[in-house]
């Protein structure tokens, strides 16, 4: 073990490890599965460590997220394919969303557990909308950073974010209405 290796290891630990919760959260929202998220996060960190000497940017978070996305895509090449217009989202593979029981948003809505409802509804967004939303709202990435991480033009980021929010709001209001009616 050389001194340089140790220094790099130390630097990686100080920069990357404090972001573990955030990387894991991103992985959870993208995979909607606790085990897969944990696996993917671990692989992301191992890859990041391997390439860390080549990392020269100032901001490590977008770099880690980009690696995570590549990890997920290498496991499922179709994961980030935009959906054809008019497709009603990923309704076909909704279950299990989070590997939890009681994930039905209607049940949660009745219990007034807003956070769980929202988590569920975010999980149901098409993946390309979902990732734009999570990068913006959870990580406060700029449009430019989102464009870089997801590899699409800024205009596409803007329309995906708008669509994500519209779909979320529509789903939220529908549930609210239903909850009031019952």
């Amino acid at each position: 073990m050389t001194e340089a290796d140790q220094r790099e290891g130390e630097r990686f630990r100080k920069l990357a490890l404090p972001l573990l919760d955030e990387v894991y959260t991103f992985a959870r929202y993208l995979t909607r599965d606790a085990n897969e998220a944990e696996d993917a996060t671990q692989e992301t960190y191992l890859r990041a460590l391997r390439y860390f000497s080549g990392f020269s940017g100032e901001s490590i978070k977008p770099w880690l997220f980009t690696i995570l996305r590549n990890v997920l895509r290498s496991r499922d090449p179709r994961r980030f394919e935009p959906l054809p217009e008019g497709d009603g989202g990923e309704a076909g593979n909704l279950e299990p969303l989070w590997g939890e029981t009681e994930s039905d948003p209607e049940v949660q809505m009745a219990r007034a557990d807003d956070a769980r409802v929202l988590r569920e509804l975010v999980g149901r967004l098409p993946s390309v909308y979902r990732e734009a939303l999570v990068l913006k709202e959870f990580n406060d990435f700029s449009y430019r950073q989102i464009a870089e991480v997801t590899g699409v033009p800024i205009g596409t980021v803007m329309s995906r974010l708008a669509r994500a929010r519209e779909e979320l709001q529509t789903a939220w209001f529908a549930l609210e209405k239903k909850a009031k009616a019952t």
Partner: protein
Amino acid sequence: MTCDEKMPLVHALADGELDVVHAREIEAHIASCADCAGSFAEIMALKQKLASPALRMRAPAGLAERIMEALPAPAAVEMPLAHPRRVRQGWWRATGSSSVNGSSSTSSWRLRAQGAFAGGAGAFALAACLAFFVMRADTGNEIARSLVDGHLRSLAGEHLFDVQSTDQHTVKPWFAGKLDVTPPVPDLALKGFTLVGGRIDYVEGRAAAVVVYRRRTHVINLFVWPGTNLAPPAIELSGYMLRHWTRDGLTFWAVSDIAGSELGEFVAAYQSAT
């Protein structure tokens, strides 16, 4: 532009992504259009809901350990703690003492790592670490500290501008006669950097012209003074990015809290326009 076409800009306003000119335009539209005002309010309410910590997750405990096992073993010697005053406030204080108490390097290392994860302090620990590293690297670099202080003063106090104008032909002449330097004041709006004004500031006791630009909601202070000194082209200090260059016998320092890559863009835009 119809309201539908404006919608992405309403989102961008909510996200703080618009420059001053567009932000004013959309704000004015929202003030006069009930539909867009409603959409804007809904977006803001949704952002608020999504800010809930309950939507974030904690990584499973075993995960951090497994990742750390892959890291090179830490050096036996603890990092020198050059700033005891700062150290006392930070999470690494406990970790420093754990190694003093004679625990093996591996277990003290685990302890330190756990300290970093404890109590959701991840982001804080990261910021603290950065400050710590930078302080160690830049003890000789008083000028960066002085520039960041100037930047912070400009954000905290009233003194962001002596002259406030988005017009380069107002800002540039204002400097003439006040200083023995008149900095170039290019209009960089098309590159995404809005000129907002200028002021005179003092860096290490010397008067400097400061041209102020904005990127989205972020301020970029460009300090300019005559004379050139050796300094690194890029410094990060306490989370602020600094870029340094010289040209025609002038020293330039750009200071901001935008990402380093964006500040690099600013420097490139400024240099190519002057």
